[in-house]
């Protein structure tokens, strides 16, 4: 116990003495979340819109003009015969309006018509916003110019979202970013702390004392566990107060889930540090884990769309479970059985990982 206390005191002092480390631990996650959040802002302007220029198609012309007047859109260059798909693909236009054969006006006169909107949705949120804007403007034009009231609209709207068919919302992204930031700091810092001792040589001093593997591993992990947990309310505050992400579930449940998750990430960092012999290797190892873990977690790409082997890989990815928990707790309020299941999975992973570290850790040199 005395050894453990000495360890905790030492680790906290080392971690918190360096002002750069303090910034890394407490300020960086908040700034990153703010930046990510702002980058994901739904307020979109200056979207390059292209429409087939057809002097006879009065209605399409009106929709296009009102779109440009709205300032959300700008006219995209592109001549009469341009292929709208090609324009969007090449980036000359962010969106393109394609009228039905014969023009939108004639189709409406016939009483039915499809107006097609091609949207480049590399940026999911932009695509959603564009769709909504064009839909609203078209509706307004039809109401004002043709004096037809909803729901008897003669045109239906067909949106073709290119390049990213599943649309996700900002509320969906912010928990993902929280999960990512938390894992980056905890895994990298934990991994580095033990390898730094190996590299500098203090590790030899450490194990020249009669300490057990348990004392060393707990002494080296608990401080980072605590620092990781301290990050949670900070990042959560930015998410809720900065971006208005709803917090529908209980904070206590979220904290339990987060502690379970930080246990797994700290355990991963510890395992990495028992394998790596210097800080470079440890950082490399951390990122080697993090990149696939982030990609597989469902943060950017929906897990449902992954091929089966990737899907399986995503189930053994702790980020997947924490992300599911965060989204469920924050957005849906946290469903009991769902939360329990994923928290248990995380705890199971943490236990396995810590056991693996114990197996690898030696208080003698090789």
């Amino acid at each position, binding site marked *: 116990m005395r050894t453990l206390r000495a360890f905790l*005191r030492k680790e906290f002092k080392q971690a918190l003495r360096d002002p750069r480390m303090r910034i890394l631990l407490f300020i960086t996650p908040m700034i990153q979340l703010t930046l990510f959040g702002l980058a994901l802002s739904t307020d979109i302007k200056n979207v390059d819109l292209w429409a087939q220029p057809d002097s006879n198609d009065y209605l399409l012309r009106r929709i296009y003009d009102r779109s440009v007047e709205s300032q959300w859109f700008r006219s995209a260059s592109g001549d009469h015969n341009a292929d709208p798909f090609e324009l969007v693909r090449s980036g000359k236009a962010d969106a393109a309006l394609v009228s039905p054969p014969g023009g939108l006006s004639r189709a409406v006169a016939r009483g039915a018509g499809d107006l097609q909107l091609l949207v480049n949705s590399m940026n999911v949120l932009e695509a959603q916003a564009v769709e909504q804007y064009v839909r609203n403007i078209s509706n307004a034009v039809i109401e004002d110019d043709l004096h037809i009231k909803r729901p008897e609209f003669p045109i239906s709207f067909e949106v073709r979202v290119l390049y990213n068919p599943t649309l996700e919302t900002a509320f969906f992204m912010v928990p993902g970013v929280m999960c990512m930031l938390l894992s980056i700091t905890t895994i990298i810092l934990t991994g580095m702390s033990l390898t730094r001792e190996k590299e*500098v040589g203090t590790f030899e001093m450490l194990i*020249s004392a*009669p300490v057990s593997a348990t004392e060393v591993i707990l002494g080296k992990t608990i401080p980072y566990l605590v620092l990781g947990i301290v990050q949670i309310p900070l990042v959560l505050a930015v998410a809720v107060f900065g971006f208005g992400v709803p917090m529908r579930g209980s904070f206590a449940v979220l904290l339990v889930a987060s502690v379970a998750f930080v246990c797994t990430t700290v355990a991963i960092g510890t395992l990495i540090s028992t394998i790596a012999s210097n800080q470079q290797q440890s950082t490399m190892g951390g990122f080697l884990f993090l990149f696939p873990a982030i990609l597989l977690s469902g943060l950017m790409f929906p897990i449902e769309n992954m091929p089966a082997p990737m899907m399986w890989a995503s189930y053994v990815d702790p980020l997947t479970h924490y992300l599911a928990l965060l989204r469920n707790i924050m957005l849906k309020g946290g469903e009991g059985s769902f939360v329990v299941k994923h928290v248990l999975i995380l705890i199971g992973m943490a236990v396995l990982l810590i056991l693996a570290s114990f197996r690898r850790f030696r208080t003698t040199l090789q």
Partner: protein
Amino acid sequence: MKDSAVEVQNLSVRFGDFTAVDSISFAVRRGEVFGFLGANGAGKTTTIRVLCGLLRPSAGYGSVAGVALDAGEMAIKARVGYMSQKFTLYDDLTVEENLSFIAGLRKLDPAVYAKRRDSILAFITFQRPLNALIRDLPGGIKQQVALAASILHDPEVVFLDEPTAGVTPAARSRFWALIRDLARQGKTIFVTTHYMDEAEQCDRIALMRAGQIVALDTPARLKAEVFPEQLFELEAVSPVHYGDMDGLRDHPDVAFFEPYGMRFHVALRKTVGGENLRRELASRFRVQAISPTLEDVFIRTVEGERR
């Protein structure tokens, strides 16, 4: 041997196919300053690590501070102090924080720790504030604090692996004064070094080569044993090419030959041929009979064998 602080019999350490320590045997008396000399990779550090409980030997028996090597690392670790050749303090912690962390590692009672800390810092005459960061201390002082840290738990045997590497000569001699003081207090000091002047200060020294102990005795007896012949120093009267000296190196009456800058150390056999050679050399060099230095001993035993 009841009064042996360290005793080792046929100790071997193998890493895969490589034999780092090859069946060595020796004993160190209590209160002795025991030096370990050898080229890099000769097996000094590996031996020390075994004796500190940091490595398990592949074969052999031994005991350290009365604890058998196979009694478990924990028991050995509790009885010995170890200062590795790498830096063993935390640069970003203060002197007090480092010492109190180590006290925690060694489960010292806080009151005992405070007393030990004060007496050890007085022993090394540490006069800086306790809250000075280690990285702000000069190299020699750091080394002394590291020594203090390694004897905080009052071990019977202290292992110092190249403790004075990279510090100034003044700091080295200060450090060695501390080592002698510790030995006078009854502690056994087991030290490795590359400095011959430091080796001279040891009670006994062991010379290691390729995992084996090739010589072990007091510095004076080692010199006599290794050099039964008379050693001469030759100083060139006129410029000499090393190439011209090769004949001398292979001369049947030359037992040892080694250039020392502009001078040469030559051991001549006590034969008629040797006497003739001495007279012949006297015509070309200023020849002076000298007693061998530990460096000559080291070169002849540790490095000379390959010739």
